[in-house]
């Protein structure tokens, strides 16, 4: 037997943010299990170490330090929260450990990576910019919306997606009538929805949290917005459970997602099935991206033909990885060029409108 590949995962596993970490962990665990069952990567088994970040930068850095110094991992995947990832970057850089980010969307992570400075940070997650562009374009051109209300989560994810939307919206003659951000854990949207209803918006641009979408959708039904105002953006509009929570509100909703359970590819279908049987619940986006990122790492190791960190890193930079949603490559900022899937809910089912890949414009430094 070859020496194992030591892989660390940093994710929030306790506290209020545990709801994101749990899916991430399961996704990664499943991938590791699949790979090891199939005999490992070039004969190397993957050993998974996890460490709790609690969603705070301090704990995240401690977790990373421990993984690197105590568990001596060579690769780290993490974290969900951007602030944590940003704090982990210099630690990984110092130690020369590969940091693969699978779920945080702050553009600064890649602004600062690759030619931006941090050679060891890679991100296998679409940027908000690409997503915002795709959604704005579709909503305006295909659906003919011009009046928008913003209702996004008050985090770097929600905020930056809206920043980018604002950048592109004038191109499509769209205007924003009102702008609101909700705090994580918010459960009462009636006031804002009433305001949106009275303001006459045609669509709500929402870059939100998966577990909040059903709450908003239900309250849209309550206030009579369902069927009149459409949700566009991202926030797991397309899962069966979300749709079931308020079918009328989600009908016609437009979402740009890195992945969706209904995606029509055999690998993806198999993943959904396996995940569901293993963990008794359907996977979500976080589960998928972590599962996929472990597979990506395995692919890079295979490509490199070595478990040496440098070799794997170089392989990653050049990789043409076939993910279930399409081919993935990395640009000079170590940002994955990922296809963004655009879908619309029709008759209670997601209907895929296409996959788009775009290059990112990095700010001149």
């Amino acid at each position, binding site marked *: 037997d070859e020496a194992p590949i030591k892989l660390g995962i940093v994710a929030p*596993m*306790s*506290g209020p943010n545990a709801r994101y970490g749990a899916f991430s962990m399961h996704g990664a665990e499943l991938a590791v299990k699949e790979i090891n069952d199939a005999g490992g990567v070039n004969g190397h088994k993957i050993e998974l170490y*996890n*460490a*709790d970040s*609690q*969603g*705070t*930068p*301090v*704990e995240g*850095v*401690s*977790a990373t*330090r*421990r993984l*690197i*110094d*105590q568990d001596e991992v060579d690769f780290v995947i993490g974290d969900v*929260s*951007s*602030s944590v990832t*940003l*704090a982990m*970057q*210099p630690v990984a850089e*110092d130690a020369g450990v590969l940091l693969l980010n699978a779920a945080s969307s*702050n*553009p*600064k992570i890649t602004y*600062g990576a690759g030619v931006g*400075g941090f050679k060891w940070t890679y991100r296998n997650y679409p940027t908000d910019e690409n997503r915002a562009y795709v959604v704005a374009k579709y909503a305006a051109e295909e659906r003919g919306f011009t009046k928008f209300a913003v209702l996004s989560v*008050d*985090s*770097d994810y*929600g*905020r*930056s997606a809206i920043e980018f939307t604002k950048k592109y919206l004038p191109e499509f003659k769209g205007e924003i009538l009102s702008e609101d*951000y909700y705090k994580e854990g918010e459960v009462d949207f009636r006031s804002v929805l009433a305001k949106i209803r009275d303001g006459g918006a045609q669509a709500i641009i929402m870059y939100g949290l998966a577990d909040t979408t059903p709450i908003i959708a239900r309250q849209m039904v309550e206030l009579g917005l369902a069927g009149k105002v459409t949700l566009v953006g991202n926030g797991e509009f397309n899962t069966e459970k979300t749709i079931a929570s308020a079918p009328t509100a989600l009908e016609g909703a437009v979402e740009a997602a890195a992945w969706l359970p209904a995606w029509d590819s055999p690998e993806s279908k198999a993943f959904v099935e396996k995940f569901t049987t293993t963990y008794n619940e359907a996977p979500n986006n976080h589960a998928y991206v972590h599962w996929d990122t472990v597979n990506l790492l395995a692919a890079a190791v295979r490509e490199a033909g070595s478990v040496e960190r440098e070799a794997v890193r170089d392989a990653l930079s050049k990789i043409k990885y076939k993910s279930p949603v399409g081919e993935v490559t990395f640009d000079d900022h170590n940002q994955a060029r990922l296809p963004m899937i655009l879908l619309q809910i029709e008759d209670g089912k997601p209907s895929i409108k296409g996959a788009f890949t775009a290059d990112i414009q990095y700010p001149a430094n």
Partner: protein
Amino acid sequence: MSLTQTSERARRRDYRIPLGILLFSVALAAPFIGSRYVVHALIIALVFMLPAHGLNLLVGYTGLLSLAQAAFFGIGAYTAGLLAIGYGTPFYVNAVVAGLAAGAVALPLGVPALRLRSTSFVMCTLGFVIIGQAIAKNWISVTRGDMGLSGIPKPYFELGPLSFTVGGTTGFYYLALAIGILATLAVFAVVRSPAGRNMVAIRENETLAESLGVPTWHYKLIVFMLSAVFAGVGGSLYAHYLTVVSPLTFQMYYSTTMLIIVLGGGAGMISGTIFGSLLFVGLTEALRITPELRMIAYGLCLLVLVFWFKQGFAPVINRVWNAIGGAK
């Protein structure tokens, strides 16, 4: 330190100075003994020790339970981060300005808040953290909102012709240690001064203290600002160490951590706070061996602490101290 022995004490063996020297040497040698991870944990303990010292002055000595430390910690972190990124100022400037900024903000906040007593005051200070976060998120032109500040440079010093950057974990450890020692001496001076006695009087019975001519209002305000200064300096260390400051810094998590350090270590005792920061940071790290049970175990530890060590570890430390010091 004023560990001058009296002849009374000298009668029995006094191990305190040797012990002090031993502890100090261990602290100095830590980077060579422990792994980088251990040193990192020590740095975190030292970073939290600063706001905890401030909080101890407030809670332990003056009897004002405050949850606002995270807010001042955050203000310090932002100030230092913005200075370092925007102006490339040396570390000591950042730290001092961070402390002063936090103290300056504490003044207008303290004026209304300190009119309140006990629980109302606690809630008011909790409000400062929540409002602080909202400001950090929404005052985008200054704080960069949710994007936060990232890539804060390593601490940089400019002493006359000499200029150098504290890079690496070890260097940062010594920096944090030096600041931690300075802060400890400062707290020591405050609590040993007559003002320290007045603070305790306020804790024990504010109206009685007032009737004896103690201007309780002024003292409370000064201590509140002082505690903010400590938190601000701690925040500057935090910013330089983690290189990232985001609105997440204004989080109850930080306030409760500091509170646990102070109360668990033993409120109203300097050694309690030092011990508490090592203990609780050490505990959270040690519990990483069982990621799933970690926070449950941590919670249980708190419960055990409350019922077995009612006053935190302060009495235990006291007893040990007296035992080795030869006092009766």
